[in-house]
């Protein structure tokens, strides 16, 4: 009965009122999501309003995650993120490494994901490290090698 009533009500609504309703509803859903949103999960159409409300490097400190590979397990070499590899764009690789490095992830899960990631992108190598490279931006301008390394994870694939 009530469903019939509502469907009739919507049918008789003027077209601009329907569009207005959709606009207002999606703004409200976006607002709810903003206040109760948990981390990465989003209700759909409105996404990331808070993008760039403050600049990323303003505190003069920043970090990236990078994969290091090794052939013998002793000397590790940096893999720079300057080109598209297989189906992964540069932003995809950043997205995945940030996800893997998150400390909310369980350690087993983390190792599993990192193994899958390395195996997919660099099947020719055996040993890998996930490294957090932190730097002061004012130092990085002078030379691009002015950064600190912190090894988060070491794995061997086989």
């Amino acid at each position: 009965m009530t469903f019939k009533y509502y469907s009739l009500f919507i049918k008789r609504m003027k077209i601009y009122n329907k569009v207005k309703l959709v606009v207002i509803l999606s703004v409200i859903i976006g607002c709810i999501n903003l206040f109760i949103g948990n981390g990465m999960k989003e209700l759909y159409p409105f996404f990331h309003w808070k993008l760039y409300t403050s600049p990323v490097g303003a505190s003069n400190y920043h970090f990236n995650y990078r994969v290091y590979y090794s052939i013998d397990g002793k000397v590790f070499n940096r893999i720079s993120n300057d080109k598209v590899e297989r189906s992964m764009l540069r932003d995809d690789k950043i997205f995945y490494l940030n996800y893997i490095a998150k400390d909310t992830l369980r350690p087993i899960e983390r190792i599993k994901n990192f193994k899958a990631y390395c195996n997919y992108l660099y099947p020719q190598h055996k040993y890998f490290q996930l490294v957090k490279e932190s730097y002061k931006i004012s130092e990085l301008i002078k030379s691009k090698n002015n950064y600190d390394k912190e090894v988060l994870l070491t794995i061997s694939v086989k």
Partner: protein
Amino acid sequence: MIKKFCSLFQLNNEDENMQIQLIHRFEIGLFCFRIFTFLWLFHKLHNFFALSERPKELYFHVSYFGQLFAPILPSVSLFVSIWTIAFILNLLQLKKTKTTLQIILFLALTWINVIEWSLGYLSHVGHLFLLLHLLITFFQQKSNNNEYVLAIKWVNIGLFSTYSLAGLWKVLTLLKLLLLNNWENSWMLPKAMLYQLITHNRDWDLDMSPIYWIFEIPYLWQIAFILLVLIQFTSVIAGISIKYLPIYVLLIIGMHIFNLVFFQVEFYTPIFVLLSFYFSYYLKEVWVNKFKSILNL
């Protein structure tokens, strides 16, 4: 003066000729948007074949919609069948929108987009594209011109309110900083833009670029940022008043291109959505008529 300001917020202030023209523009824009949807679909199909070879451990959910409807990476046959449904629904609605078909089309397009999101493909966020598909749902029924124009304006308001809300956050942040008088970590620092640029370049391991001196000009980028925030914040005016619409569309496309060139923020879809939906009319009026007149000569 006050009367003029108030009339800005009145939605139905056009005369009859203008209304007919607006409806005409909307219909051309919608047609071109549907054509763009085909291109988008082909792009996504091409992407899916490249993305589906990724290991299944790297598939995780970034939205509740994805968790519900695409819990695991779908098989090729499922993807292709839903893709075909979306293609056919879009083809059926080329001339005229039908509410039920459009709702199914919207869900199918969201499903296609959500899979890419779950695979970490964040660089082509399609929020504007999907929002427009949602907002045009109810354009099946024909009513009188006055109501139709109001509905078109609400579509514009819906699209531009996303930009306005993005601007609202920046305005609120600036006000907060002004009240606290604490300018650490803000865009008002002289080196904010330069540092942002360097972190973005570092993400992609780009070399130090020779254009850095542009970002060291004092005051230029603070003023530019305030202007940008004002443009974003007030962009809902474009939805309310048709007079300011082309300017705002151009400014927002300019903003996207600026981000693309300097900050490697790859937002391609909004540019094409705005171009196809709002500027196809001018394309038709100017270039097709010119072409016709050349043929007549």
